[in-house]
């Protein structure tokens, strides 16, 4: 019998907002548990996309005609919405990018090239996604900087003592995620940011897995950079933001050259535009940025605390049910987690589990989740990962558990 879920939210009504959920996959009702990879889009986001193309598609900022004005306003409205969403002080601190990966690359490339020197140190954690590893490796190689990695405890938490040991006056950048995509661990980033500041380092937070689940207040956190992907917070793919403290962004050189980012161009010298446009070269992804505002509206309408409460119930329920299966080993058992549960089943490869679940209409993710160093530290080449969003239900988890029981029975016979 399912327990009572957060009564504030009417999950069935919320599900109606997501047309994609109402379909059969392989003859079974779709159960979508791959939300940490990307979550589904409510009607208001989908409609904002089509309305943009149907009613006011125009290139922004330089046009004087009505459509250009309307498109510009809609685009800038999303900037204000994102500013409010993360409690940033100024709208020009919100740079539109293609998502977290580009945001991190922007900082690594622009800030790194301008400020990193030989022997400087960059601290990452063992929980990072490849997107928060590779850009740093690239700039470290170029600037002859050194990467240090914080170890992870067996439950999947950052070892703060080790972090403390790694910090030194040589530390220039700390880059960690707010929540882990593979394990769901919520990291104590406020504490970590404070510790980094004590040695004079700046901090970049990969907020990919946090934006749909956790309250974000960049002023309170006091991080220098915070990165978000739209598609992991019910918004369209292909866009996201980089938040950066204004005084830092102003000192950073542009990342890409082109239109929009310039003030004056001559073949002798080009002067760059002001923030945020300095970092938004070329025609941006206008439609998706415009629709992102609706994703923010969707989250705000439900209330992040309510979403988190529902997801927390789902996570507890799933964790308890999974743990009751004798051959299942839970990977990632931190005390504070977003709604992600990784697991392995003794003697059965994650790919097989993923495909067998897909045959029953259940979408999970299998593999290393773009965190190969983390998987290695657990001695695994991959896990099965179920991740939950606001539209998921305990009944769906029951179907997952039933599917796993069948797989275990079949393969262990």
């Amino acid at each position, binding site marked *: 019998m399912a327990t009572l879920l957060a009564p504030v939210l009417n999950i069935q009504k919320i599900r109606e907002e997501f047309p994609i959920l109402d379909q059969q996959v392989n*003859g079974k009702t779709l159960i979508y548990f791959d939300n940490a990879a990307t979550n589904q889009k409510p009607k208001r986001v989908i409609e904002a996309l089509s309305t943009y193309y149907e009613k006011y598609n125009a290139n922004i900022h330089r046009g004087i005609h009505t459509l250009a004005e309307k498109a510009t306003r809609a685009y800038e409205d999303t900037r204000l919405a994102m500013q409010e969403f993360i409690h940033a002080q100024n709208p020009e601190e919100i740079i539109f990018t293609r998502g977290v990966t580009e945001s991190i690359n922007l900082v690594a490339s622009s800030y790194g090239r301008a400020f990193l020197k030989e022997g400087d140190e960059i601290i990452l954690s063992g929980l990072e996604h490849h997107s928060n590893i590779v850009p740093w490796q690239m700039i470290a190689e170029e600037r002859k900087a050194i990467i240090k990695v914080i170890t992870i405890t067996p439950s999947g938490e950052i070892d703060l003592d080790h972090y403390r040991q790694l910090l030194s006056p040589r530390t220039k950048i700390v880059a960690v995620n707010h929540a882990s995509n593979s394990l769901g661990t919520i990291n104590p980033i406020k504490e970590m940011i404070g510790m980094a500041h004590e040695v004079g380092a700046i901090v970049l937070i990969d907020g990919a897995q946090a934006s749909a689940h956790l309250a974000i207040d960049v002023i309170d956190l006091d991080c220098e950079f915070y990165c978000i992907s739209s598609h992991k917070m019910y918004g369209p793919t292909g866009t996201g933001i980089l938040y950066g403290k204004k005084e830092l962004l102003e000192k950073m050189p542009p990342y890409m050259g082109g239109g929009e980012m310039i003030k004056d161009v001559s073949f002798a010298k080009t002067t760059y535009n002001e923030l945020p446009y300095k970092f938004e070269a070329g025609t941006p992804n206008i439609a998706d940025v415009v629709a992102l505002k609706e994703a923010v509206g969707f989250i705000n309408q439900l209330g992040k605390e309510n979403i988190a409460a529902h997801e927390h119930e789902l996570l507890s329920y799933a964790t308890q049910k999974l743990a009751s299966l004798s051959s299942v080993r839970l990977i990632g058992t931190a005390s504070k987690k977003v709604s992600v549960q990784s697991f392995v089943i003794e003697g059965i*490869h994650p790919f097989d589990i993923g*495909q*067998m679940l897909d045959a029953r209409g259940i979408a999970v993710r299998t593999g290393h989740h773009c965190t190969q160093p983390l998987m290695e530290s657990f001695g695994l080449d991959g896990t099965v990962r179920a991740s939950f969003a606001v539209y998921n239900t305990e009944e769906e988890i029951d179907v997952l558990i039933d599917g796993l029981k069948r797989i275990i029975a079949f393969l262990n016979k």
Partner: protein
Amino acid sequence: MTINETQDQIISEFALLDGDMEMIVFYIMELGQKLPEMKVGDKSELNEVKGCQSKVWMTAHLDNDGIYFQADSNTAITKGLVSILVRIFNGQRPEDILNADLYFMKKIGMERFIGTQRSNGFGAMIKQIKLYALAFKTQLAAN
């Protein structure tokens, strides 16, 4: 049995599963479970089929002008898939393997249930089998 006779047999077996994806996946794994054990030492990097997402190992030997394959995988479904190929090609002459038209894949709707990534891996297994056939054909011609 000829290559095409085995293909036809496989097509009729899959037809019994009536397109039920879960039954198909379980059946493929069952086929894999019947594949003779491969020697542990043969599961080496040298014998790995490149281009598969899962690990797949394959060896082959020539016996009386026919090629015999041994294969294994670290995932149950891929092991089932490679077992289908072993079943089709075991004992066949190099020439026939090289000329084979694998129509069973389309007939059983393979791409629908193995997806793009596994399709590429399956293609790599077929390529490996044909490479063995070519090598043995050359060897036979030289003798």
